[in-house]
């Protein structure tokens, strides 16, 4: 039987309810804004799209760089190298594999790794591109490792639930306790659907690890 509420869920504007609808959200209206910008850059070398992407990401990358390097000069070097890679290799971005922020993080991480490596003047063959592979692995037959019965383990799980990182716990509570769909959680928290899914998997993995750990 068709559940009428599930039909309404397709309409995002109905979902939020009258109370919230009136207020303007400061969140980007569209989670896919930066993914689209990257496509424009890849296809048209679109400087305007790049400039917008730059003003959003560069200052955040700088904050990240300051955190990792502890000094302004290296932080800015990392920002420039990262954003240059984004401009020059936008074609490598594949929205089906993840968000723009994920891709940009991995570039910044690789840039940082190679900067540290260069500073130590190590000339061996360990490069970030090899160590942090970003393409497709060959298809492998596998079992879905998350196919385990969470509820059978409820008693064991409960004490570890509180120790999950807040972002993962929020998602888990909405999905498993409030029984919301991934799409609903995505809209409610203004985070991409992929992020909801990945947080659930990470939380399940963390819980499994906590339960498997004989010391606990």
């Amino acid at each position, binding site marked *: 039987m068709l559940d009428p509420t599930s039909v309404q869920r397709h309409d995002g504007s109905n979902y939020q309810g009258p109370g919230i609808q009136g207020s303007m959200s400061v969140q980007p209206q569209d989670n896919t804004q930066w993914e689209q910008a990257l496509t424009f850059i890849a296809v048209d070398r679109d400087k305007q799209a790049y400039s917008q992407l730059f003003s959003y990401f560069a200052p955040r990358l700088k904050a990240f760089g300051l955190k990792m390097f502890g000094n302004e000069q290296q932080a800015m070097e990392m920002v420039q190298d990262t954003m240059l890679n984004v401009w020059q290799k936008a074609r490598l971005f594949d929205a089906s594999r993840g968000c723009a922020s994920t891709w940009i993080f991995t570039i910044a991480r690789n840039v*940082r790794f190679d900067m540290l490596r260069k500073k130590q003047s190590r000339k061996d063959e*360990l490069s970030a591109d090899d160590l942090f592979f970003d*393409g497709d692995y060959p298809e492998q037959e596998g079992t879905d490792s998350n196919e385990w019965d969470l509820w059978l383990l409820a008693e064991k799980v409960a004490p570890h639930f509180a120790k999950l990182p807040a972002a993962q716990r929020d998602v888990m509570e909405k999905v498993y306790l409030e029984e919301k769909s991934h799409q609903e959680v995505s809209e409610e928290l203004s985070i991409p659907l992929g992020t909801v899914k990945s947080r659930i998997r990470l939380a399940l993995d963390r819980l499994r690890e906590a339960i498997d750990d004989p010391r606990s």
Partner: protein
Amino acid sequence: MIHAVKHHPALELLEQYIEASLAPELSLAIAAHLDLCPHCQRIKMDLEAEAGATLVSLSEAPSAEADWQQMLDFITAQPEVAAKMEKRQPFALQIQNSEILLPASLKPLLQNKLKWLNLGGISTAKLAGEDQHNVSLLYIRKESEVPQHTHLGLEITLVLKGKIYDESGCYGEGDLLINTPDHTHTPRTMSEDCLCLSVLTAPLKFKKGLTRLLNPLQHLFY
């Protein structure tokens, strides 16, 4: 891969790996494990997505408008770079008279001819590293034992072919053994030869009898 990988790196180790906080030699062992383990490949992608979400949640670190503009102008004046997304493929290598498929991560380190050192049933070939971090291949013939040892640092062993056993169990292709200074173990093979990648962050210390003599020589050995 037919063998289901059972021994994985802890999440914490994967977290340090994806943010490049691990020593590169340790990252190499994790990268090679990832090549063999679809389960951890997915966790890696999830952790990177989380790190990306964290990145955009940081508050902006300001710079002078002119500095940003200068950087932006410089970047957009650069040409596009032709780059292609590759597929990660294992590669075959002749090792001790048999052809073995190895994880793609190891390829850059296996461009030169390997120099094997043989000690009893065990052969080792150093791939990279200096001082405190050593990366080597370890070929253990069937029915051999690695002398009992402890570690002054972290020892990561990745099984590439065959099986190895120690006091805590059996490890097959793709399995990762991590030993800390608290562990003493005696890895051994049974009915088949075993090839491992070994990464040591500090020298081993052998505990028993004559094998203690190996200690000063172990820079040759591992």
